[in-house]
């Protein structure tokens, strides 16, 4: 619970400082935004212990197999990275780069689905 207060305070402070820096030094303002985002994410990683435990429990229930749960975790990581990168690009008025990042994220997510999709199509063939 404390993390969200600290993260909000840091983000607001960074936003105010970025606004001040933007007029004189836009590159420094962007760097500050990137560092703030990375800092908050690293702090939030600590809360991901719960997610790690869930992953372990699911792995145990599925008999130690990572094959089925790995694509979900990959897609989750792709979603987080895509969102952060896209918003940072939009912050510095680089909409084309933001769109390219979103497209790349979609392609990566779809490529994660492909092996599962092939297995499911084989399974459907087996049922019919």
């Amino acid at each position, binding site marked *: 619970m404390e993390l969200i207060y600290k993260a909000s305070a840091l983000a607001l402070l960074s936003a105010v400082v970025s606004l001040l820096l933007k007029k004189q030094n836009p590159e420094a303002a962007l760097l500050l935004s990137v560092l703030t985002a990375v800092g908050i994410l690293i702090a939030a990683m600590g809360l991901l212990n719960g997610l790690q435990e*869930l992953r372990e*429990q*699911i792995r145990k*229930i*599925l008999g130690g197999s990572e094959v*089925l*749960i790995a*694509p*979900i*975790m990959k*897609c*989750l990581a*792709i*979603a*987080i990275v*895509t*969102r952060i990168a896209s918003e940072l690009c939009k912050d510095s008025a680089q909409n084309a780069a933001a769109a390219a990042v*979103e497209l790349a*994220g*979609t392609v990566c*997510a*779809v490529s*994660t*689905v492909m092996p*599962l*999709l092939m*297995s*499911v199509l084989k*399974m*459907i063939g087996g*049922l*019919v």
Partner: protein
Amino acid sequence: MRKLLFVLLLFPLFVGSCKAESIEEETARATDIYQVESGLDEEERSVSGELRIDGTYDARGALGRLLVRFWNKLREELRREMHFGVVLIAIALLGSLASSICPGNRIPEAMELISCCTAALLLAGSLGGVISQAADALTRLSDYSKAAVPAFFTTLAACGAAVSASVKYASVSFAMDVFMTVSQRFILPLIYAYLAVSISGSLFDSSMIQTASRVTKWCAVSSMTLITTAFCLFISLSGAISGSADAAAVKTAKTVISTALPVVGGILSDSAAAMLSAAGVIKNSAGIFGLIAVCTICAGPFAVLSVKMAVFKACSALSELSCGGKYAKLLGNVGTAFGMLLGLVGSYGMMLFLAFMSGIRMVAC
């Protein structure tokens, strides 16, 4: 005079014993009624108990053991399926998390696709086992009906309901064979097809696939409903028509015997009535044993299928709250497929149940 006295003294040596209580045992042996018990395996017999033809069968004890067995099986299956349900909910939550992170682009759709594929592949491991378990239950019921039903209806005929017994036996055997053939060649393949179409429907947005899914489900459910309803109607109507014919025949026979033979006619008529009553006691005992035997055979598969159906439906409802859409629909459809399997086993069990019930209710003597 001496010769007469000598014959009278030796006469008791030539008289055999005559016990009234051996009628039931002899009738049971003649009708081979113990097939109703020997058609069960060891485990099922431990629940149903021993068939007693003198009307002292412990039905209450058997029902108690049946309930305990069903409850234990239900708990065991629930414990196993809860872990599986937790995994399905976890997948739904992770999917909704990814969707909330990137709402604007195509990543949530990819995540939903991954969730559906993962659930389908998780299901693949257990699906074949569940369907073959249902098919085994049907085979088990069919084998039991082939052992028990002829013996039961032979006893029914021995009660004086010869016409009813033959009509009912013919209709029961025919219905069981038809149902078994239709189940194996039509309904089970339809359930497989429904599962395949449901999984495809969760991956690809197509109205044609949705329609195919609805049609497949309708065909499977309607077939089961049609056969079971036709069987119930026929067995009720045939019982009503032939029952009165049997009652008239028995009454006529008794009257003819008692009036045609001047002295012993009444004794013979009473003896025949005693034999019919003995057969009636055996029929009722065997009928109740048969009812409990059918429930015992169905208890295991019912517990497994009902738990699976409940867990999938619950997961579908919970997934609807978090991620909604295709994933929840897939889980719901899989729950429906398990429900259809439950209906299939239940229909066959119900038909056998009704066959025994109609025999027990028959009163001809």
